[in-house]
């Protein structure tokens, strides 16, 4: 038996044992599904939810919120990071503002998200944006500050005459692995903001919304189902992104990325 299969088997065995312990505690020790739903309660709830047909809508809506937030964070974070990383003046100007805004928890923006955008998809997207923006900005900034000087000088002697050309042909490609890592962190943070972003009722669907909704209905097995889906979806997003970056973007970086 090789290492890989051994690892898989042990992992699956551990999961089965954990599920068994959970089942026993839930059924015989706690005994109340409201406080701790058992594995079978959750499985039943999952099958029922599959039948009800709202799951797909929930996932779609959540991805919409997530996508809006992340796209906005990318479209603003990368250019501002480039400006601050490349131009000293931009750094001096923007750094104090960023330093004041950065420590504010994304969820603290929820009141203004509602006031500015109302109970809309954009409001939820905005909260996720706040969470995802700073990791992308910081990663881009740091990556640009640490572009090896010799690459920039090589670019200059080979005919890059302007900052724009140097950024486009030298600094940005050099910075992409670090920016990709930043985006990956940002996706994690953004996904964590999702539940809170949906809890103030921007729509009748969404994984985070359903989690709260079922809590109000005291449907705790459903709550666990949504928790697990949130976890799995987060995992899958991360895997897909990493495979994409490793495989397509960064062949030259030979697997040392993220």
């Amino acid at each position: 038996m090789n290492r890989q299969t051994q690892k898989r088997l042990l992992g699956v065995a551990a999961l089965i044992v954990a599920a068994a312990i959970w089942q026993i505690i839930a059924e015989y020790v706690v005994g109340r599904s409201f406080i701790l739903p058992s594995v079978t309660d959750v499985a039943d709830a999952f099958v029922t939810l599959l039948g009800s047909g709202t799951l797909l809508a929930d996932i779609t809506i959540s991805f919409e919120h997530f996508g809006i937030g992340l796209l906005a964070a990318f479209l603003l974070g990368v250019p501002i990071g480039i400006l601050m990383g490349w131009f000293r003046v931009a750094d001096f100007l923007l750094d104090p503002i960023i330093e004041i805004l950065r420590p504010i928890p994304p969820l603290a923006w929820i009141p203004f998200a509602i006031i500015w955008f109302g109970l809309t998809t954009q409001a939820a997207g905005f909260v996720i944006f706040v969470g995802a923006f700073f990791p992308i900005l910081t990663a881009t900034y740091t990556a640009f500050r640490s572009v090896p000087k010799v690459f920039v000088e090589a670019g200059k002697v080979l005919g890059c005459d302007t900052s724009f050309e140097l950024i486009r042909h030298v600094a940005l490609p050099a910075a992409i692995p670090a920016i990709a890592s930043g985006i990956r962190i940002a996706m994690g943070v953004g996904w964590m903001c999702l539940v809170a972003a949906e809890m103030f009722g921007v729509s009748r669907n969404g994984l985070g919304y359903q989690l709260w909704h079922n809590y109000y209905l005291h449907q705790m097995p459903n709550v666990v189902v949504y928790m697990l889906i949130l976890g799995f979806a987060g995992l899958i997003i991360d895997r897909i992104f990493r495979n994409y970056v490793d495989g397509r973007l960064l062949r030259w970086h030979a697997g040392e990325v993220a």
Partner: protein
Amino acid sequence: MSGVTIRDLGKAFPKEDGTATQALQDVNLEIRDKEFICLVGPSGCGKTTLLRIIAGLETATVGSVTVDGRAVTGPDPKRGMVFQEYSLFPWRRVIDNVAFGLEMKGVGKEERRRTADRYIEMVGLSQFRDAYPYELSGGMRQRVAIARALANDPDVLLMDEPFGALDAQTRNRMQKELLSLWEQTKKTIVFVTHSVDEAVYLSDRIVVLSPRPGSVREIIDIPWPRPRDRTSAGFAEVRRRVLRMIDETENA
């Protein structure tokens, strides 16, 4: 015609406390077209700084550098540079590294790849044209860097200890190859090195700089044909002379 003329050149680096470090002072040097010049000198004498000023990566505090009668005001593809550190762009394949300068000039893809292929062949790396830099050895990387600089068809090739990081054997082979490239392309080469042996093996003239602030201490003509025999008495004699000159000034 691609001579380099350096007139009364000085360079001072400002320090934190408001004073300045004088790196170069009163440098005067006339480099002829198609000449192979080596700059040697004690550590810290400013030979790399001088090279970087010729490249346009640094600006002189006083004096002037003219190439082909035109004053140097900034970096220009007409002056190719090979750096001591590995400077290939790791995200580009060999072929696209070599074609970079032509891409910046706006040369079409077909044509710039054809040109790049020619220079890759010249440095003997045709079978690595599609490799990424991390797949190459140190010597190969510097050969690609030389091809990349030559692909721009510069008037002058500036080399800053390009073989400094290579092992002795690879270094000797690279020196031989560089001479053959120089004979094929007939560029003016200004080559900074720590190794007196390398300088005697390569150059038409060795320019010995004095310690900081650096200026031209002596210029030694080496009129022998190439390839040169490192073990000959004449070779050893010139090497000894240059070494003594550097040693004296270093201990002075």
